[in-house]
């Protein structure tokens, strides 16, 4: 009897302990999941911003793609800027201040750079209009009756008559 009573109270004690520990465990787990999620989001934002910057010491590579020490340091600097609460535009402006527009892989939509954005659209539109005009001309020409010179018609008839 004594053994049974002590066994029950031990189990009750373990249950109480589990009830106390369970929320603590859940909170810790949720906390670490949220920290991991934040780290993933931060890394993705750093990579996204680095992808918009040209590596200054490489050829045709972005800061995200390059493994040069300069690019590694720039990615570190982007992370620091984000930690300071800077917006994406502010982070890009930070590097633009040092390297000028050259550092941006996507040219800014102002000044002479506008040409890069407008010209392809203008050329594309002009090509479409030209294509449309040509197609209309061809289809029109196909649907109109062909005028044949009566003399030519007679010559063809004569030739056909002779061959038959």
């Amino acid at each position, binding site marked *: 009897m004594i053994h049974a009573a002590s066994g029950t109270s031990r189990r009750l004690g373990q249950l109480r302990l589990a009830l106390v520990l369970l929320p603590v465990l859940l909170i810790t787990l949720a906390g670490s999941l949220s920290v991991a999620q934040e780290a993933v989001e931060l890394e993705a934002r750093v990579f996204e911003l680095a992808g918009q910057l040209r590596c*200054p*010491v490489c*050829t045709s590579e972005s800061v995200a793609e390059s493994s*040069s*020490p*300069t690019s590694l*340091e*720039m990615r*570190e*600097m982007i992370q620091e800027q984000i930690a300071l609460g800077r917006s994406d535009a502010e982070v890009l402006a930070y590097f*633009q*201040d*040092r*390297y*000028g527009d*050259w550092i941006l892989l996507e040219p800014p939509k102002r000044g002479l750079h506008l040409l890069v954005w407008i010209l392809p659209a203008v050329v594309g539109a002009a090509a479409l209009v030209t294509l449309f005009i040509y197609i209309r001309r061809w289809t029109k020409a196909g649907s109109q009756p062909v005028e044949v010179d009566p003399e030519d018609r007679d010559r063809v008839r004569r030739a056909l008559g002779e061959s038959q």
Partner: protein
Amino acid sequence: MKRLIVVILVATFLGGLFLFGLLRGQPDRNIESNRLGREMPGFELPVHAPLLAEFGPTFEFNPEALDKPIIVNFWATWCAPCRDEAPVLEYAWQEYGDEVIVLGIQTQDRDNQRAGVAFMNEFGLTFPNVIDNSSRVSIDWGLFGVPETYFIRRDGTLAYKHVGIVTNELMDERIAELLQS
């Protein structure tokens, strides 16, 4: 006939573009600094071991407290043109050291201090030389590669940036301009 001319013109244009792409070679690194005419960012970097006694443990560049113009040269131990121009920088220091400061910054050369010291010893460099181990100063200054040499006025603003090897003549000319400004 008219159509043929149009086709030839378009083909020539596209062919020209293709050839330009093929033959343009490496991109030009001689890009004008975005900081031209502006105050350059300050920094404090550790001085290379052989010069500690003369210049102290660190060199501080404060653009607002310069008493002389300063010439800042970025170099690396793996950079062949940097070897060619090292004697020119020493010449400038020997010749104009009383009127201007010549500063060498080893950069893009992480954890390579020992090779940096060997480089200095090889060329007998006596002007202050520091190491930008993280390359952060070179990013702050908008550096595209090595060697690059920055000519800073007494008021801390950038007068001129030279990309590539400097020569004695170039140094004479640019230092004269710096001293007049």
